């Protein structure tokens, strides 16, 4: 696939801007990244801290021709793409993982968050935007984040030069080309790929926060639609389709 990469010094949110471009007809493979986001956001408009030059704030426009029942699997696809990109750039002794569905953990802390959005006109899928915020050069984070954060710089330490934002950008585009082609060819295969990449697929004790409710249990694989199955203490298996995995061991 061909990428058309656009760079902005500062922008409200790369996802918001790319969605606008998508509705104006931008083609698949259009990518937008910025040095700084003034209104970077995650799901439900949660603020995504985007200080100038510290992170890679990137959004990629896709227009997949797939059955819409497979569309939610693109959440998992986004996680696999960033995992692959960072794996290729990171020494093997640094642990990488995917926290369900697509947060990337480096040494057990969140190094990347993904906001996957899609747009339908009535019944027709018009666009998918995968937004990625990779913490590259941050050395400090505010308190009170949903999950403990890290950056490439913090995880690599003082001695070892960490990849630049441009390295990460290139790695993500390479991984997108490969994994997206595989996905279009046979969407359900991403389930197995994700399982191979994530320790959260099986046997992980997790807590999921769903609104005011907390669900605790042990992970028992993925359902065909991408839902994470969690076995509770009572022995019932519940699919996680909404909410956040807030802790794990």
């Amino acid at each position, binding site marked *: 696939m061909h990428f058309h990469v656009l760079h902005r010094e500062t922008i409200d949110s790369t996802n918001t801007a790319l*969605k606008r471009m998508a*509705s104006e007809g931008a083609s698949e493979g259009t990518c937008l990244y910025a040095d700084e986001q003034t209104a970077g956001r995650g*799901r*439900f*408009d*949660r603020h995504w801290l985007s200080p100038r030059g510290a992170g890679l704030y990137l959004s990629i426009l896709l227009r997949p021709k797939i059955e*819409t*029942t497979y*569309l*939610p*699997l*693109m*959440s*998992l696809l986004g996680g696999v793409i960033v995992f692959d990109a960072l794996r290729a750039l990171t020494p093997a002794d640094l642990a990488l993982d995917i926290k369900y*569905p*697509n947060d990337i953990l480096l040494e057990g802390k969140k190094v990347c968050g993904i*906001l*996957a*959005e*899609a*747009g*339908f*006109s*009535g*019944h*027709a*899928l*018009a666009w*998918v935007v995968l937004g990625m915020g990779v913490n590259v050069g941050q050395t400090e984070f505010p308190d009170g984040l949903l999950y403990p954060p890290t950056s490439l710089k913090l995880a690599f330490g003082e001695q070892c030069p960490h990849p630049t934002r441009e390295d990460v950008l290139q790695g993500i585009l390479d991984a997108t080309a490969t994994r997206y082609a595989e996905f279009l060819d046979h969407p359900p295969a991403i389930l197995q790929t994700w399982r191979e990449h994530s320790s959260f697929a099986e046997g992980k004790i997790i807590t999921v926060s769903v*609104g005011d409710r907390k669900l605790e249990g042990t992970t028992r694989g993925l359902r065909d*639609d*991408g*839902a994470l199955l969690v076995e509770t203490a009572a022995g019932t298996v519940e699919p996680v*389709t*909404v909410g956040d995995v807030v802790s794990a061991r």
Partner: protein
Amino acid sequence: MNPKEIKELIELLSDRRIAEFEMERAGIKLRIRTTHPGEGVTTALPPVITVASTPVAAPAPVAAPAVPKAEAAAPAPAAENLHTVKSPIVGTFYRAANPNAKSFVDVGSRIQTGSVLCIIEAMKLMNEIESDAAGEVVAILVENGQPVEYGQPLFTIKKD
């Protein structure tokens, strides 16, 4: 609005899975709430209907910007002018971008083709559902935060 028009509306709503319908015109506020039977039960319960005459001291055209005067006097919309937006995906229905934000649309909102009507979350993928018709939202058929099925009616739009 005369009894015949109300009856037509009820007939229109009764064969759809409509949770709530609100309409305000010419001093009358109509609110229809349907009670849905449990799964596996196929007989539909009759809708619960309340029609309240809003006391109108004086004509107040400024207070109702969403409904042009000519339209307020028009008869109930014919079925062919109504367009149903159905869910293209299985997921969770949200009327706003976040829990504290204003709803994308309300009953009575004027919308264009391409206006965002709601978000349906499916496995953390946030799907914006845009209207494929221009007109007025006359019914919102699902409550915020509820699961929706593929093909489930979400909104009724009275097309321009």
